[in-house]
């Protein structure tokens, strides 16, 4: 089946060249970078300062060469970095959560995780903008 909607936490993209095969989602290298920010390099799968080496034993399950070019299996990479995946076959929507190195230590340091969100006017506020002040952070909803 061709094409997929990739939700990389709150980053939403359309990957028209994606091939979904059961639990595997194969992406072309350009769509890999466009949808996730990850890039396949000789040293591994890299984003900014982080490079994840591809273990030899998992290489075949993660990287393949098709006549159209090289592809990476994003769900196999998710397994490697302990990232939760949920997908809906009927609509071909794939959700990828945070990597294990982020969620495993998230709240254990007791440091308030930083975030940036818009207000009603669209202005974005970061928690870190308020560093140096006491903050009462209140979550609410209409439901």
């Amino acid at each position: 089946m061709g094409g997929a909607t990739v939700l990389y936490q709150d980053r939403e993209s359309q990957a028209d060249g994606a091939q979904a095969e059961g639990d595997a989602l194969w992406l072309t290298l350009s769509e890999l970078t466009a949808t996730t920010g990850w890039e396949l390099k000789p040293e591994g799968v890299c984003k900014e300062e982080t490079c994840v080496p591809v273990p030899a034993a998992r290489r075949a399950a993660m990287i393949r060469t098709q006549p159209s070019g090289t592809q990476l299996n994003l769900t196999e990479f998710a397994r490697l970095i302990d990232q939760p995946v949920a997908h809906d076959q009927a609509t071909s929507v794939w959700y990828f959560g945070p990597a294990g190195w982020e969620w495993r230590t998230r709240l254990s340091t007791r440091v308030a995780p930083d975030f940036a969100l818009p207000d009603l006017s669209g202005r974005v506020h970061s928690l870190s903008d308020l560093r140096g002040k006491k903050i009462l952070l209140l979550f609410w909803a209409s439901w």
Partner: protein
Amino acid sequence: MVTVACDANGRAAVEPFITAAHQQHPSLLDETLQVAELYDVRNVPSVFWIDETGRMVRAHDPIYAQRRNRETGEVTVNRDYLDAVRDWIAKGDHSTFLMDAKRLDSRLPALDADDVEAAAFFHLGTYLAKRGHPAEALVHFKRAHALRPQNWTYKRQAWNLGDIERDYGTTFQEALKDPASGPFYPSLDLVEPAGDGG
């Protein structure tokens, strides 16, 4: 003070409340509930106190400082809680209302693989519900609920996007009694509960 509306219906659902409150502080919109996940918000309200260095000193207080009854318009002020906040503002680290490390850790348990998998199903369900795929959304919401029945955010948001009786075969009152769900809110102990050993 910062408020975060973790609400998949976004502006349309929350703007009337924000406007009516005439708030002077940042009132932010978390339409994908990613920030709610970041703080492991399992129900609302949930209040955190964060000190000047960015450390949490209270976590998951299930309380509004004041609230207005929707029918009568009557405003109830949680005086004890407001006093606790004022004490913290005045005394900082010396306030008696701060949670110690042990208590904070018990309110901020480490996540496991099922927690993040449940979150993934919930976020996928939310996306599908908002894009007009309610039947598909329901499947993923139910997976999230089965994995983490204690998370009321997953349930209340899903019920709000669908219909609790038609889609989930229950009512709010019945769901409250489900033993798998545990308490609707965590405890609100302004000071260390007696006999806690801390």
